[in-house]
C-alpha cells in the first residue's frame, strides 16, 4: 500500500492532560514484565485507542551503584560501574576514569588513547546492533532483522574478546590507560570484519530502515521539536534526531577523537524515523573512524602507572556513549575510596521525553516511541 502515511492516520481527539481521571478513561499498567530490554513500568491512561497520559514508574533494577561505589576502592569500582549498560561497557568505564586521571594529573600516552578509541567505537556498533535487533524483533515484529542484528553483533564480540579477554564486561580501562595492547593479528581481523560489515549496511537499509511498513509506522510518530528537545535536556540520538548538532566527541575531544575525521549525523524532523536513521548513520561513521584509527595508530607505551589513592578534589568527566552523553562526577578525599560518585547517563536524562511524547498517540505507537528513545532501564536505574 502506498498511501500517504499522514493521511491514513486519523487525527487524535482533543483530550487535555489532567490529573483527575475522566469517566471515559482507563488506567493500564504496562507492567514490569514486558518484552524489551529490562524492567520499566509505564502507567498509561487510555481513552479508547488513544493514550492520554503516561507516568513512568522506574526503579525495578535499582542496585544502589552510587552507594556501593563509596565502599570499594577506585579500581574495584570499575566492574560494577560498567554493568549498568552492559552492551556499551567501555564508555561507562572511560567516563569514570577520565575524572580520576584528571585529579591524579595523569596523561594517557597516544597509543593507549587510540586503543581505547578503537574499543569504544566497536562498542558503539555493538550497542546499535543490539538496539536494532530488539527494536526490530521485539517492538515491531521484524524477526529477520532480530536474527541479523544478533548474528553480526557476535562477530564484533569475538573481536572484543580477542582484544580484552571478555565478551561484554571488559574492565579494560583502569586509571592510566588500557590494560593490554592490540594482539597480533587484530588489525587484520578487524579490517576484514569492517569490509564485511560495510557490505551488510546497505542490506540492513533495504530490509529494515527503508522497509515501507516500518516507515509507515515510524514517520511522524513521536515528534520532538528542536526547542522542546533543548528544553527537556535530552541527549544522544534523540537530540540529534531533533536537529541539534551536539556530540561530546566534537565539543570536548577525549581519546583520539581530536585527530580523527568524522561527521555527526543530524536530522531535522524529530520523529521516530529520524532517530532510527541517526543510529544507522552513526554505525557508518563508526566504521570510518575505526579504519582511520587502525591506520594512524602511533607506536609507544600504552599506559602509565596510576597510584591507588587520589588527591583531594572534585572532577567531572564525560564521554559520548551510544545512548547519549555520560558524565561522572568523582569527589575524593585523599584516600583510596571515593567520597561520592555521581552518575548522569543518557537513559535517565531521556526519560523525561517519555511522558512528554506519549500524549494523544495510539496505543500501538507506544512500543515504537519507547524503542526509538532507546531507553535501557538498567542504566537509568543504576
Amino acid at each position, binding site marked *: 500500500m502506498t498511501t500517504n502515511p499522514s493521511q491514513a492516520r486519523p487525527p487524535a481527539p482533543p483530550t487535555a492532560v489532567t490529573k483527575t481521571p475522566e469517566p471515559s478513561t482507563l488506567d493500564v499498567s504496562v507492567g514490569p514484565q514486558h518484552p524489551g530490554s529490562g524492567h520499566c513500568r509505564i502507567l498509561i491512561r487510555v481513552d479508547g485507542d488513544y493514550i492520554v497520559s503516561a507516568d513512568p514508574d522506574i526503579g525495578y533494577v535499582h542496585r544502589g551503584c552510587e552507594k556501593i561505589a563509596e565502599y570499594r576502592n577506585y579500581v574495584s569500582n570499575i566492574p560494577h560501574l560498567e554493568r549498568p549498560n552492559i552492551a556499551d561497557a567501555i564508555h561507562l568505564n572511560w567516563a569514570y576514569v577520565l575524572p580520576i586521571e584528571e585529579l591524579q594529573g595523569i596523561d594517557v600516552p597516544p597509543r593507549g588513547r587510540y586503543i581505547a578509541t578503537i574499543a569504544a567505537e566497536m562498542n558503539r556498533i555493538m550497542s546499535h546492533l543490539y538496539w536494532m535487533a530488539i527494536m526490530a524483533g521485539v517492538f515491531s515484529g521484524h524477526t529477520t532483522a532480530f536474527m541479523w542484528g544478533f548474528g553480526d553483533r557476535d562477530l564484533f564480540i569475538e573481536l572484543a574478546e580477542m582484544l580484552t579477554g571478555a565478551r561484554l564486561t571488559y574492565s579494560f580501562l583502569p586509571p592510566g590507560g588500557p590494560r593490554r595492547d592490540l594482539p597480533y593479528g587484530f588489525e587484520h581481523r578487524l579490517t576484514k570484519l569492517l569490509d564485511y560489515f560495510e557490505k551488510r549496511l546497505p542490506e540492513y537499509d533495504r530490509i529494515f530502515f527503508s522497509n515501507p511498513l516500518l516507515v509507515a509506522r515510524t514517520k511522524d510518530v513521536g515528534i520532538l521539536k528542536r526547542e522542546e528537545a533543548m528544553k527537556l535536556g535530552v541527549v544522544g540520538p534523540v537530540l540529534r534526531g531533533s536537529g541539534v548538532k551536539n556530540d561530546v566527541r566534537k565539543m570536548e575531544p577525549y581519546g583520539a577523537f581530536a585527530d580523527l575525521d568524522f561527521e555527526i549525523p543530524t536530522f531535522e524532523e524529530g520523529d521516530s524515523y529520524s532517530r532510527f536513521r541517526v543510529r544507522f548513520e552513526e554505525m557508518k561513521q563508526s566504521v570510518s573512524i575505526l579504519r582511520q584509527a587502525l591506520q594512524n595508530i602511533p607506536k609507544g607505551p600504552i599506559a602509565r602507572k596510576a597510584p591507588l589513592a587520589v588527591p583531594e578534589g572534585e*572532577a*567531572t568527566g564525560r564521554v559520548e556513549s551510544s545512548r547519549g552523553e555520560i*558524565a561522572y*562526577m568523582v569527589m575524593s578525599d585523599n584516600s583510596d575510596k571515593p567520597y*561520592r560518585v555521581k552518575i548522569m547517563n543518557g537513559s535517565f*536524562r531521556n526519560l523525561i521525553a517519555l511522558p512528554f511524547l506519549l500524549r494523544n498517540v495510539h496505543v500501538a505507537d507506544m512500543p515504537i516511541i519507547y524503542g526509538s528513545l532507546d531507553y535501557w532501564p538498567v542504566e537509568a536505574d543504576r
Partner: protein
Amino acid sequence: MAQIALSREETLINQLKTRFPQEIKETKIDRARRVTVTFEKDQVLDIAKFMRDELGFDHVKGVAGVDYPAHKKLEVLYFIASYSKPEIQDIIVILKTELPRDNPVVNSVVSIWPSAHFHERETFEMFGVKFEGHPDLRKLLTLDNWEGPPPMLKDIKFPEMGQR
C-alpha cells in the same frame, strides 16, 4: 599541558558577580570548560532565571546531593549546560548550595528548567532534600519497598556493605 585561554569562563564569572554581588559566595574555574559557583540557597530561583534568560543555559544535566555529616551540611549540586548557544555549549557550570542537614529545604527549579524534574525526585529520595514547588515530589527508584531513611546519607550504614 598547554594553557588554553579561559576567557569565556572568566566572562561568565564576571557577569554573575556583577549581577549577584552578595549572594555568590565563591567561584572557581577548575579547568577549561568547568566553572563552579557557590551561592546562597534562597536565591536559587533568581540565579536560575538569570542564567537561563541572560546567559543562555537552558538545561540541567543532573542534580547531585553530597552529605557532609562532620560539617552538618548537605550540599546540592546542579550541573547546568547550554544547547542553544553554540559559543558556550561545551561549558558545564556547577552550581553549589549548602543546606542545613536537619532541615534540607530548597526551592525547586523545575519551573525554570523542566529538565530537572526526575533529577530532583531522585535527590529527594536519596538524600531527603525537599524541593518546594516541585509538581510531583514522590519517590522514584525505591517506591514501594523502602520504608527506611534516605539511603545515600553517610551515617546510614548498611551492616553488610563493604564486608568481604
